């Protein structure tokens, strides 16, 4: 469990990116922070592994103040996956995956063995292990990024718009892959995105953020969809538009679900 208590982040230029945020991120679930740019979602994520230092407030992991820990050690215990993979271009795929275990002192041969298994886990062929990142496609690089994030078997995995830079088809594949991996591994995942569809797809809990890291609404996707608490939330999730504003029409004695324009999307099973 990760807990923020009245946490504020003020950057040196005076911008308040996060203003008195209080938030509990439950263990072994996927929590998605979603918001447009300037909502402070990435700042919140990076405060968890202290890549961004808080200005005030408390941040605890499993009841332990993260400021009581050495930041380098803290980061090695938390997986991190970022946009554009952030792979080290001068190291082969396999060496990228073993980065954190090797930093933690695991023997290289042993770490490599485990890394090959991880390549299987993220759906990559083992023959790619000896390639350099630039020789892989964007989607493959992102998979390596996920494997690297999991390599030290961390309890917590931070994902900063990890699928933001790949094309829609690959993104959809990666999302399904992540859902599968999470079903198997049950990590505490904190996932940042600006894409509400991605948030609803992946999140057990979705935290919708407004400017300054203020929580507009927090809950399961179904809770947010069924009862948006403000116009901001309703607009952001597109509750009144297109694919979300579904109606039921009776056709041939069955309930057919249609969207705003009357195009059928499926049949209700009763």
């Amino acid at each position: 469990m990760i807990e923020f208590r009245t946490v504020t982040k003020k950057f040196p230029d005076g911008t308040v990116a996060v203003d008195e945020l209080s938030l509990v991120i439950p263990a072994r679930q996927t929590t998605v922070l979603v918001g447009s740019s300037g909502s402070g979602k990435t700042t919140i994520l990076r405060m968890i592994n202290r890549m961004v230092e808080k200005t005030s407030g408390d941040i605890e992991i499993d009841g332990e103040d993260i400021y009581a820990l050495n930041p380098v050690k803290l980061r090695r215990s938390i997986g991190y996956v970022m946009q554009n993979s952030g792979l080290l271009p001068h190291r082969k795929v396999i060496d990228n995956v073993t980065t954190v275990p090797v930093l933690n002192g695991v023997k290289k041969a042993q770490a490599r063995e485990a890394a090959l298994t991880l390549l299987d886990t993220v759906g990559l062929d083992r023959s790619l292990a000896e390639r350099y990142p630039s020789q892989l496609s964007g989607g493959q690089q992102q998979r390596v990024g996920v494997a690297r994030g999991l390599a030290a078997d961390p309890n917590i995995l931070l994902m900063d718009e990890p699928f933001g830079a790949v094309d829609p088809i690959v993104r959809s594949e990666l999302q399904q892959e992540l859902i599968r991996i999470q079903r198997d591994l049950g990590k505490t995942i904190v996932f940042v995105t600006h894409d509400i569809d991605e948030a609803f797809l992946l999140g057990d809990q979705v935290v919708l953020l407004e400017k300054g890291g203020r929580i507009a609404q927090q809950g399961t996707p179904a809770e947010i969809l069924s009862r948006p608490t403000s116009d901001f939330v309703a607009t952001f999730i597109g509750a009144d538009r297109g694919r979300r504003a579904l109606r039921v029409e009776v056709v041939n004695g069955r309930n057919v679900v249609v969207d705003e324009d009357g195009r059928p999307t499926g049949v209700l099973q009763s």
Partner: protein
Amino acid sequence: MNWVVNNLGLIWSLTLDHVALAVPPIILGFLISIPIGWVANRFHASRGVLLTISGLLYTVPSLPLFIALPAILGTGILDPINVVVGLTIYAVALMVRSVADALAAVDAGVRQAATAMGYSAWQRFWRVEFPLAGPVLLAGLRVVSVSTVSLVSIGSVVGVSSLGYLFLNGLQRNIIEEVASGIVATLVIAVVFDLLLVLAGRVLLPWAKADPTARRARRKTVETAIAGPSAGGSAVDDPAVSDPSMAGR
């Protein structure tokens, strides 16, 4: 060709002297430039100052420097140390900018990723930033290498043995072959050094061949370096001073 054939021993021993004088400044210049370039890149305020100072160093004419150094260092006037120190100063002058530019060219996303993985600042520099700066550093080092090999000759004017002796002696005695052999031997050293550096790059930076962004960065540096030490980068921190110095040397 007679002169060359009759003096192969002399040419060879002067070539060895030349190499012995050129290698230490290239290595020392590189090593000294790393911390200076790091500071220039790390602290915004120091960048302009350090790059200007190092750029100005290159404008000090070499002949007076070789004559002044014995007085400053307390060495003998014929001591090769003078030439080594002088050439190291020029190497630093050229290399500091390369180091600063090379480090600045390291992708910020990769640096952040390294931090997020749990590299300490020291580990991150040596295992991530420095290797990634490699292609641009190598490009800078190649310029330093050529410049140093050619400047070693000046040492002959103050009596430190190098291939420069062949130009001086050949001119005085009007032996064109002797002058030409000095020029050719210097060129050969420069080319061999350059090939060795490229080879070292191939071995040490195998990833750079695969990485299109590294190739682009390297090409750009070579272009700006060839255009002159102050031709690259922004106009703000660039003293437009290097051209007169080249003329004076």
